[in-house]
């Protein structure tokens, strides 16, 4: 890991700490109030705030996770650094696409 990756990992972690807290609070709220899927969608569809909230969350996770995975791969797998980079970038892109699709599914009107 170099200083760029280090900063990217720490900054995305700092972004995600409050987001994770809020995300958990949302889950607790939704279960406490027994919201149905339709109730949830009624609140999220067309909402720029929810789009931003989960959009930023997905982006931060898609940067943060592959940096850690890359370290694990370089230390614990026989992969060469280049291949580890490739696998980590692939996983990052996968997280990004899956995450943004999920966000789009709940916020697009």
């Amino acid at each position, binding site marked *: *890991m*170099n*200083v*760029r990756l*280090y900063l990217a990992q720490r900054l995305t972690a700092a972004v995600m700490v409050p987001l994770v807290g809020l995300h958990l609070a949302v889950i607790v709220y939704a279960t406490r109030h027994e919201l149905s899927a339709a109730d949830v969608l009624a609140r999220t569809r067309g909402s720029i705030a929810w789009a931003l909230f989960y959009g930023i969350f997905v982006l931060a996770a898609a940067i943060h996770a592959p940096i850690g995975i890359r370290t694990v791969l370089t230390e614990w797998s026989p992969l060469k650094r280049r291949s580890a980079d490739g696998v980590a970038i692939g996983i990052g892109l996968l997280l990004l696409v899956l995450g943004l699709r999920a966000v789009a599914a709940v916020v697009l009107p």
Partner: protein
Amino acid sequence: MSNVRSQLTVSLWRGGEDGRYQSYQVPLRENQTVLDVVTWVQRNLEPSLAYRFACRVGMCGSCAMTVNGRPRWTCRTHVSRVADDGRLEIGPLENLPLIKDLAADMRPFFEKWQQAKGAFAPSKTRHDPIETIRPDSPARRAADAAIECINCGVCYAACDVVRWNEDYLGPAALNRAWTLVNDVRDTANVRRLEAVAASGGCHACHSHQPCQEHCPLSLNPTASIAGLKRRTALSFLKGEIEA
């Protein structure tokens, strides 16, 4: 019951990477160090045994070996403290290539010391007046806390990241870099910070501290490396170094 025992059973690594442990009986003495045991075997049983020492008083850092599974300075390690039921297993330092028997090849260790820009780069000549350094200044205190390293390689042998990542500079070289980063007389800090901010530098450290736990001088390379992580991150954000 070590007071009734008169012999130690000592296994020493013999040969190169494909060697094996060989067992010897060594008379037990009072105040005997692990280095005394190795020397006794070399003088009395195995004249060809290869191992390294110089000062025998914990100054030179040349006598480190793996003793019952842990890296230790052997000249200052008493047998009574480490023998397990009268048994000692002594091997070469880990994470380094092996020359023969108990002598590890220290070259990668010192090459990384160079790579981390561990050499002092003076800003003055012998004709300039001596610069006054306040011993209580924060920078000097940080340097002093890390300066007593004897290059024994114990931390390097104890570090898992060294084992897993061949590019990792390791605790001793980074600890040394941190002392120089805090030395106001040094002129090489941009290059030094760039060297330790690169891949394999301070950011590869997991801060899990076996280096500190095993350092015979109770230094804390983890803290020095944490200092480097902060300093390089700040310098990078300010545009003072390139990465």
